[in-house]
């Protein structure tokens, strides 16, 4: 019995280590080159280890080039505003779809599901027209409304969680005379926190790494976000990959920190704390 358990555990670790190896294999080239000076990068093999892992000149150069701090600030604003509305709208829609029966319920759900099927790249001309007529072109409002617009993942995720929140809780509250708004606010919303944390992570990262939306809808230099600032290290047929590598690692940091901060909330689960 104990033996099979050890074997099972060893197998788990072996697969995990293989997974980690595969995951870390491609970034090797980014990591080693971020520490190489121009000359070292140009003359040596791209695969070679750097002369020193303490050569932070590229990281410094990335910062001195400017725009990055501003890019961080702009990105942060966009992410925060988007998230607040995403969480609010996501929980609201999930509450309605998960708790009530009404005629248009299936239709609304289908509307969300179908939205993911429409290939966004081909509708951009029309989308651009809307953004422009709303007066949002070249403002932060453009990416924000587009990110808030439609995302079925959050609806499904919330629905999944809401199903596991016992309906008794609602009913007890109703017996005590609580309004539906109050039930949403003080029972449903707080009990959805694990889903909310997951959403915060996944959504912030996808916004953080999205280049196309800010690139098309707010090209103004002052409105640069992290990705569009990163773009300034390369051009049509010109790229300083040692500098870009450093920039890639640098912009990885904030997301790592966010992940560390939030991971215990994601993985804490409904069962372990919140219900009581």
């Amino acid at each position, binding site marked *: 019995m104990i033996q099979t358990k050890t074997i099972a555990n060893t197998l788990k670790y072996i697969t995990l280590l293989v997974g980690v190896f595969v995951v870390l294999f491609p970034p090797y080239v980014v990591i080693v080159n971020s520490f190489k000076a121009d000359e070292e990068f140009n003359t040596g093999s791209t695969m070679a280890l750097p002369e020193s892992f303490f050569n932070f000149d590229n990281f410094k150069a990335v910062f001195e080039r400017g725009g990055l701090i501003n890019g961080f600030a702009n990105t942060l*604003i966009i992410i925060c505003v988007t998230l607040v509305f995403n969480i609010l709208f996501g929980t609201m829609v999930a509450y309605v779809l998960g708790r009530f029966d009404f005629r248009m319920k299936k239709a609304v759900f289908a509307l969300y599901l179908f939205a993911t099927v429409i290939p966004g790249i081909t509708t951009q001309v029309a989308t651009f027209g809307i953004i422009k007529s709303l007066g949002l072109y070249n403002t932060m409002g453009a990416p924000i409304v587009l990110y808030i617009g439609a995302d079925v993942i959050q609806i499904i995720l919330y629905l999944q969680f809401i199903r596991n929140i016992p309906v008794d809780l609602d009913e007890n509250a109703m017996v005590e005379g609580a309004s539906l708004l109050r039930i949403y606010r003080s029972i449903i919303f707080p009990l959805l926190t694990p889903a909310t944390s997951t959403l915060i992570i996944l959504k912030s990262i996808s916004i953080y790494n999205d280049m196309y939306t800010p690139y098309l809808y707010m090209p103004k230099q002052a409105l640069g976000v992290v990705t569009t600032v990163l773009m300034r290290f390369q051009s049509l047929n010109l790229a300083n990959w040692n500098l870009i590598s450093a920039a890639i690692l640098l912009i990885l940091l904030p997301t790592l920190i966010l992940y560390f901060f939030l991971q215990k909330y994601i993985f804490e689960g409904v069962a372990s704390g919140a219900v009581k």
Partner: protein
Amino acid sequence: MRKKSILLAFMMILAISAVLAGCGGNSGNGTTADTGNSEGTNTATANSGSEGSGETTLSGKVTFLTNRTDMIGKEYDEYLKRFNEKYPDIKIEFEGGQTDYNQQLKVRMASGELPDLMFVPDIPNSDLPKYFAELDDMPFSSELTFKDFKSYEGKLYGITTGNASSGIVYNKQAFADAGITETPKTWEEFLAACEKLKQNGVIPLSSNFKDKWPLGSWAYDLPRLIENNPNFPNEKLNTDTPFTMDNGYGKSFSLLKELADKGYLEKDINSTNWEQSKKDIANGKMAMYYLGNWVINQVIGVGAEADNIGFFPLPYDNSGQTRAGLSPDFFYAVNKDSKNLEATKAFLAWLIEDSGYEDFAGFMSPLEGRESKLPQLAEFQALAVELQEGVADDPEVIQISNKAQIDLPAIAQEFVLAKDPQTVFDKWNKAWAKAKKDLGY
């Protein structure tokens, strides 16, 4: 419970920052709106109190959608400083576009949201007057090269950013080490040189085949050079079989295929790496490029000694006579509805005459008679090469090509990879003929 309160605190912070951000965003919008207004009022005001020189002082804000994202916050800052010495009241706003520049611009065009200054997108010349301002009144317009490329009904709408000649850019040391003492003058000599390089462990020609665009010289320049007819690409209009083995296309692609088959290109042409190839040309692991002269500065940029890089025309046959293509790069255009037309034109004029962009980017000047600072070009011209200028594309040919979805470098790729290249030509000839018929030409 404690964890819950931490999370609550986090949500609060989030909410607060969102509110603050909202304000920040609004105030940001506010300022843009303000500048928008001031733009309107300031439009090209001729200042009565212009300083001594008698020059009018222009003001306003000019947005420039550039594809040189790498220059934003770097060289452009310095450009701006110099430009503002001359025109202190013109503000320049740089916007960045990249590989899909053309797509980005068209999306903006569809909504009438063009920047003031930009590069001409892929549209037929007949559409130019609908979007762009006439540029015939530019001070240097009589000295401009390639004036007819982006003109319509005799009016000028686009100005070349710089011109380049296509030829073989090579590492002199790699040639010397392989025992090549003279640059090849015939195709036979060229093949012999490739063989020597290969024997010496050097990749003779870096094609960057996979990336497709580096095949441009083979697809756009060489066919018309071989035919000795600048108008050759446009003469497709008169035939249902534009691609034959014995015309410019067939001959040009066959030369490329010969190099590939003999192993004179990268070991695996489907796995090439553009940035890496520049390093390899610089350090002599690869010997040659067949590209425009603009690449010389880039190779020097990754560490090659300037005098180790040479440039000679590709000897595509055994006649000993050589021609090389001369082609423009992107074209500047000015939004005809620009609120600051005069200021935009002033900036454009400055870019052409004073910025030094062509030297930085390794081009020849858009203006006639200006010497290039590139020593390799002087060397090249000393070889008495006949420079054959390209001609503007025929709009009907463009229309048929678009309908048939003809992409010449892609056809070159297919041709080289095919066991029987004739089948590739047959396929595209068929597509061409069908599109031509459907359009009624």
